[in-house]
């Protein structure tokens, strides 16, 4: 499907399982007329080269806000108020926006959900793809266009020589997503953040895009942070998973272990809600209620109002993430009881 035209890269390829990104104790606050809200609370995780870590959660859980904080793309009302975002030895959170520009492209690429709004409608895709080479590599417009054609072929866009002068609206949804991925990987970044990259796409196109991401990861050993609400996509694509709820990471570990034997009642509730194997007419197990609003996050455990195991302790004390062995962590006072239940 893809032709072998890897964009030439100055830096040597990293090897597998190197720490590329280390997020520790990240806090993001949003200023609103009602007061300051904590959208991301004490989030820590590590992304390794050649691996995919998934941030999994429902809408409003803070997964996209975490991604935007890492990339420095937070809205003006939101700001990082604590923690570190360490990318290849530099704390991104401590940099000014101008200093950050150097990292966008060569070190970090990002793919958004909606390719049509992420691309500029008044420039050709060739111009937009070549931008990275003009800015970071100082290439001429002509040389940058040649690079753009090479990239388009690399991500599987047919006839790149003629398509390079087309505008974003002239491509299908799947092709636009390929263009966005091409832009993100143009300078062979060490880290790729993919924020719901296939949510707007049909399943057969989703399969093509996920295959492309996996091929690119294998070639360049980049680390991928996959942000999604789709449990099955995590099962297929990720090595490790961090499950988020109401701004907090509530469970973390290798995907196979977490999904086969969840330690947090929320993770278990999510897995039980998937209609797999349930017979027609069977009642699905659902989680009662809905996630708390950001201005209404309880003291104690964030999940207490929906949790079957909640007790007095959960109402007074918020459980910290604790190691449970085999590289897993969970924020629950009663995770051992869940295994028995």
């Amino acid at each position: 499907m893809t032709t072998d035209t890897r964009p030439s890269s100055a830096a040597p390829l990293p090897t597998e399982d190197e720490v590329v990104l280390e997020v520790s104790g990240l806090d993001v606050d949003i200023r609103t007329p009602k007061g300051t809200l904590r959208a991301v609370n004490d989030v820590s995780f590590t992304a390794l080269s050649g691996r995919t870590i998934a941030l999994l959660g429902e809408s409003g859980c803070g997964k996209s806000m975490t991604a935007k904080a890492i990339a420095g793309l937070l809205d003006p009302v939101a700001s990082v108020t604590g923690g570190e975002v360490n990318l290849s030895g530099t704390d991104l959170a401590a940099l000014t926006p101008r200093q950050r520009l150097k990292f966008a492209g060569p070190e970090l690429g990002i793919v958004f959900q909606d390719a049509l709004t992420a691309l500029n409608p008044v420039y050709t895709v060739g111009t937009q793809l070549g931008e990275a080479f003009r800015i970071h590599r100082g290439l001429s417009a002509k040389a940058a266009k040649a690079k753009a054609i090479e990239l388009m072929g690399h991500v599987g866009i047919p006839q790149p020589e003629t398509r390079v002068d087309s505008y974003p609206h002239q491509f299908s949804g799947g092709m636009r997503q390929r263009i966005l991925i091409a832009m993100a990987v143009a300078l062979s970044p060490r880290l790729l953040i993919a924020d719901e990259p296939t949510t707007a796409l049909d399943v057969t196109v989703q399969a093509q895009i996920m295959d492309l991401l996996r091929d690119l990861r294998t070639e360049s050993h980049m680390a991928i942070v996959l942000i999604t609400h789709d449990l099955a996509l995590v099962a297929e694509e990720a090595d490790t998973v961090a499950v988020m709820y109401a701004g907090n990471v509530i469970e973390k570990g290798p995907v196979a272990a977490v999904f086969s034997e969840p330690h947090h009642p929320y993770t278990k509730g999510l897995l039980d809600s998937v209609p797999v194997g349930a017979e027609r007419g069977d009642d699905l197990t659902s989680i009662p209620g809905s996630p708390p609003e950001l201005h209404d996050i309880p003291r104690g455990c964030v999940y207490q109002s929906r949790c079957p195991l909640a007790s007095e302790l959960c109402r007074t004390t918020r459980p910290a993430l604790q190691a449970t062995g085999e590289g897993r962590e969970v924020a629950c006072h009663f995770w051992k009881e869940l295994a028995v239940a």
Partner: protein
Amino acid sequence: MPDLLDAPLLDIRGLTKNFHVASAKNGNNVLCALDRIDLHVNRGETLGLVGESGCGKSTLARTLLMLERPDAGTFRFDGIDPFSLKGKALLAWRRRVQMVFQDPFASLNARMTAGEIIAEPWMTHRDLFPTAAARAERVRELLILVGLRPSDAGKSPQEFSGGQRQRIGIARALALGPDIIVLDEPVSALDLSVQAQVLNLLNELQQRLGVAYIFISHDLSVVRHVADRVAVMYLGRIIETGTAEQVFERPRHPYTAALMSASPRLDAVEGRRQRIVLKGEMPSPLDPPSGCRFRTRCWKATEICATTAPAPTAPTGEPEHLAECHHPVQRGEDSGLLARAS
């Protein structure tokens, strides 16, 4: 389609809908959105309608609601052709088919209360609940029926969560006592934990009220859970239909097999599986391929697929499991290996 079941509630044959578009591509300005669709829905059952964007699902749904007039074909609803109705008879018919929309945020008027939204259909169908007291009482009953509180009638949509809003949309669809509800992606905008609540509600309502559903969705695991029968659409045609078990357990059309294979699966962590990854994208409906419409992306396509459109066929012993393919997928066939050779 062999008529094995007694008088289906909805029975359409050869339904065709063309749109005329201004920009002529290859000298053709007719877009065939529905091409000779045969479909039936029985009383109280759920038909799952599956397909990717642009396949004609929504045009079919709009035609069933009489929002589009078909260009050809027969349309029978409980023995009547609704397109022949006029005036009061047409108004009475419209009660019997209702719809629930995908986006519970866009489909409820933010300037009305939940009670007003649920009661709005009775502004058109005035004879159902003529007095304000009768309407208020029925709103109360409907709110309880969909798992909300009677006191919620005075709240505006913004005060509800996504799942609760979809319950209001369902109550509105039930207000006229329909025989059939078209559910267009009713849970795809909801979070997983809430999605299960709404699916359970739909199931419970069907058992209590005997209402039939046409459930349109791209999520195969959801369709598998809710549907009695399934129809798979591709480029304006139903390319495979059968009971949910037949279609999901023994898909015969390569496109159905590819769709199932492409859907991510929760059990995939046990080991990376071979997936059928289709080449390319759905061709433009303005310029559909000759012969079989799926042949341009099919790994089993041969000469005959380009020249002859396949007729629907069924395997022996399963006459209702129809697929339009010259080379149907056989049981136990390792389609994954074949497909990878792209």
